């Protein structure tokens, strides 16, 4: 019989990668299968990038418990695996008297859940913290933070990898057969035998669950659209600014989120859609977000908007409602651990979810810690964040740091090469983008795509059709010039 894995994880989002990394502490054979060309391609890379402090969640739910626990764990975790984490605080702003009871409710809820430092503040203090925002009163949460969701997920996956787990990209689980004491998992890249399966497939968790014989779950994708603003207006905002959400909005309301890289994101909307892969931006929502952005920050201009995107929330309820359906995290039957409905605050809760899954496993299996486990993954160099003296030293040591590939984000050739030779083996232009930030700035690749393509060619010598924006089918070119004329 061929190799039998101990754990096969389905889904390379932040939860799956965090579980893979935690499992890699032990003497286990673990494989993570991700159907996309990279990790963090689904909901994990398409959100506000916020570490929530825990006051939104209804007390005594798993969501509340794991949110607060995750928020406690994240600073140390981000430090260990090299993801930027900035504590910047959050304001939930009330503009009218009748919105104040909601702030009080959040404060009470947060205090029960264990959120630290919540305070109700008046207009004067709001304008001291956030001069460009007007409010009647606000709930101030000083411990709310922002993080880099790409680096967190990638860092966890890379750390799992160096500790012996395998991360298989472009690998879609198609079929699961349950035998007496193991599973056969068929993928587009061949089959695996495994004693245990962990389903962290996010938007597709219901389908994977059904493949494993557990029917009855249904994921209702709920789309959130965002605009990204140019770094040039990043100074307009210091903290996270959230509104009192409209009733039955299904989300936290359209909010302003500074990113760790100095942009501001605006969104998300909340609209139920049919297909989990439908990530289109829609005209009405785009306009509405533009209008709302200008209400909050009148200084914004059209040219300050550099990108729009969308992410889908894997919800367990079909309609917009503030009713809370809790996370499903359980071993459905021996060997099949299900994680279903891991929506917001999933990014914050991820380390706590992984901890809980390890706890479930430890109840039935003895796990042997590896002495060789290395918890560290080095933070990638960000040339643009360094002082002139640091830049000079880097270039002197490695001239490729002196060659700027992406002018808008000041990303150097060395950083692009490091991203291109990433340990996971992701090779697309978007994989380089989420690792190095090349093409993430105001020209959106107009200037640096040709340079990035050249580096991909120099380093990997791919066929033209294999130069892709992201996964299979997203080829950048249809051939060489003259090819079409020859056909005709």
């Amino acid at each position: 019989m061929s190799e039998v894995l101990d754990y096969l994880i389905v889904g390379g989002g932040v939860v799956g990668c965090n579980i893979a990394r935690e499992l890699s502490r032990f003497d286990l054979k673990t494989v993570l299968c991700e159907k996309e060309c990279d990790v963090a391609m689904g909901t994990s890379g398409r959100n506000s990038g916020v570490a929530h402090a825990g006051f939104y969640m209804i007390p005594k739910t798993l969501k509340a418990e794991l949110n607060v626990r995750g928020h406690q764990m994240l600073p140390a975790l981000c430090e260990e695996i090299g993801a930027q984490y900035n504590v910047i605080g959050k304001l939930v702003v009330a503009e009218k008297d009748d919105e104040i009871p909601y702030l009080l409710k959040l404060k009470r809820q947060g205090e029960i859940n264990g959120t630290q430092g919540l305070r109700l503040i008046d207009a004067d203090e709001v304008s001291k913290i956030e001069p460009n925002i007007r409010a009647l009163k606000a709930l101030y949460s000083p411990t709310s933070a922002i993080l880099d969701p790409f680096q967190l997920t990638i860092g966890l996956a890379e750390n799992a990898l160096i500790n012996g787990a395998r991360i298989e990209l472009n690998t879609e689980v198609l079929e699961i057969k349950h035998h007496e004491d193991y599973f056969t998992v068929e993928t587009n890249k061949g089959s695996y035998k495994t004693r245990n399966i962990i389903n962290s497939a996010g938007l597709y968790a219901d389908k994977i669950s059904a493949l494993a014989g557990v029917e009855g779950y249904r994921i209702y994708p709920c789309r959130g659209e965002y605009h990204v603003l140019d770094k040039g207006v990043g100074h307009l905002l210091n903290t996270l600014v959230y509104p009192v959400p409209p009733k039955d909005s299904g989300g936290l309301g359209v909010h302003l989120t500074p990113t760790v890289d100095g942009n501001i994101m605006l969104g998300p909307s909340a609209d139920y859609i049919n297909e989990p892969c439908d990530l289109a931006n829609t005209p009405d929502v785009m306009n509405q977000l533009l209008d709302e952005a200008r209400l909050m920050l009148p200084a914004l201009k059209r040219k300050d908007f550099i990108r729009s995107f969308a992410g889908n929330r894997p919800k367990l309820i079909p309609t917009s409602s503030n009713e809370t359906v809790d996370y499903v995290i359980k071993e459905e039957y021996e060997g099949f651990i299900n994680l279903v409905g891991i929506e917001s605050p999933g990014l914050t809760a991820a380390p706590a979810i992984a901890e809980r899954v390890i706890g479930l496993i430890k109840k039935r299996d003895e796990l042997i810690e590896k002495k060789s486990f290395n918890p560290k993954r080095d933070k990638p160099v960000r040339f643009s964040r360094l002082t002139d003296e640091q830049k000079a030293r880097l270039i002197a040591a490695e001239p490729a740091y002196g060659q700027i590939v992406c002018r808008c984000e000041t990303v150097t050739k060395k950083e692009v090469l490091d991203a291109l030779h990433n340990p996971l083996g992701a090779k697309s232009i978007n994989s380089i983008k989420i690792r190095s930030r090349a093409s993430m700035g105001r020209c959106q690749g107009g200037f640096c795509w040709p340079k990035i393509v050249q580096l991909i060619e120099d380093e990997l010598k791919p066929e033209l059709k294999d130069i892709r924006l992201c996964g299979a089918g997203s080829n950048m070119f249809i051939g060489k010039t003259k090819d079409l004329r020859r056909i005709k």
Partner: protein
Amino acid sequence: MKRREIDLAVIGGGPAGMAAALAAREKNIKDILLIERNHRLGGILKQCIHDGFGIELFNETLTGPEYAQRYVEKIHDKRIEYLTDTMVLSLSPDKKIIGASPDGLLDIRAKAVILAMGCRERTRGNIAIPGSRPAGVYTAGCAQNFINLKNYMVGKDVVILGSGDIGLIMARRLTLEGARVHAVVEVLPYSSGLPRNIRQCLTDYDIPLYLNHTVTGVCGLKRVESVRIAEVDDRWRPKPETTKEIKCDTLLLSVGLIPENELSNAGGIKINPDTGGPIVDENLQTSISGVYACGNVLHVHDIVDWVSMEASKAGVKAAEYLTGIKTSECNIKIKAGCGIRYVMPDMISGTRETDLFLRVSAPGRNKKITLKDKKKILSSVPKVRVNPAEMIKLSLNGLDLSGVNELEVQLEDG
């Protein structure tokens, strides 16, 4: 860090930077450093392999690379020092320049600086095109780079949004390479490119131009599969009932150019919101004394010949500044009035001969451009035809501007 003192630093080695450096050298400035971020001098001209460059300046029609090469050779002839693969990271008001190159981080202290960084293309994000985000959406200039410099085809069934000159040139280029350009879509009721490009790039190849239309959606998960276009009303709102879907694998965007002034902004240089470029006086001096601007970083030009001429002037003026020649104070404010999109420069002295460069807001026939001091008309120039795509040069020679504080430029019926 390598520190250098220099008389004149020129940031950008495209047509503007090269012409500016050459003009300063003509005026006997010895210590000039031209700084280019790409591997070769020439800027965007290198990828503009079509002809039509040089008619005004050389009285012959050249391709972009040929036009650039004339200047590159002069730069070599005149032994002007230049750095390639060197990107300026910051410029401070005291004219300290930090640049990165594989040879090290440079700390350049210049006595005068000429800004010649050019412009960038407006993107999908800037104009909020709805739909999915598959491969196959390119700005026209990016596609031009891939096709002309790397010989890679970005697609075979193409829709182009925007009728800017690069988009029109690319419509022809793609057609010549065997691709099918299904439509050029323009939200305005008129083309934003030069009339000659409409004729030579669209009409001659039977490529349909949809005026008053825009792209309302991009479809396709991996690669573009189709785009939706619709007619717009007079406030650019799409009329849903006019929507039609065009099957294609590529959407090119030619929706405008933005002077690239992030460096200028960070250096404390004041920007004119109408041009997107620095506020300058008649000497092309910015709000910081000794810092000059020219070419597309100042305002977007339609032909390169005028870029070169403007840049030569900036080079001469920077040389005068360096040699201590006093210029007259520029206290007369130029105001873009009714019907005028912008006027460059922003301030003039009124004591010497100078030209205004301006664009109208909309096309028109039988118009006149008037210059006013408060309500008083100082001059009126008839124009049979005006078009925003065509920059207008207006001479102020012979005009008595004594006592004028603000000169307003207006477009009126003629």
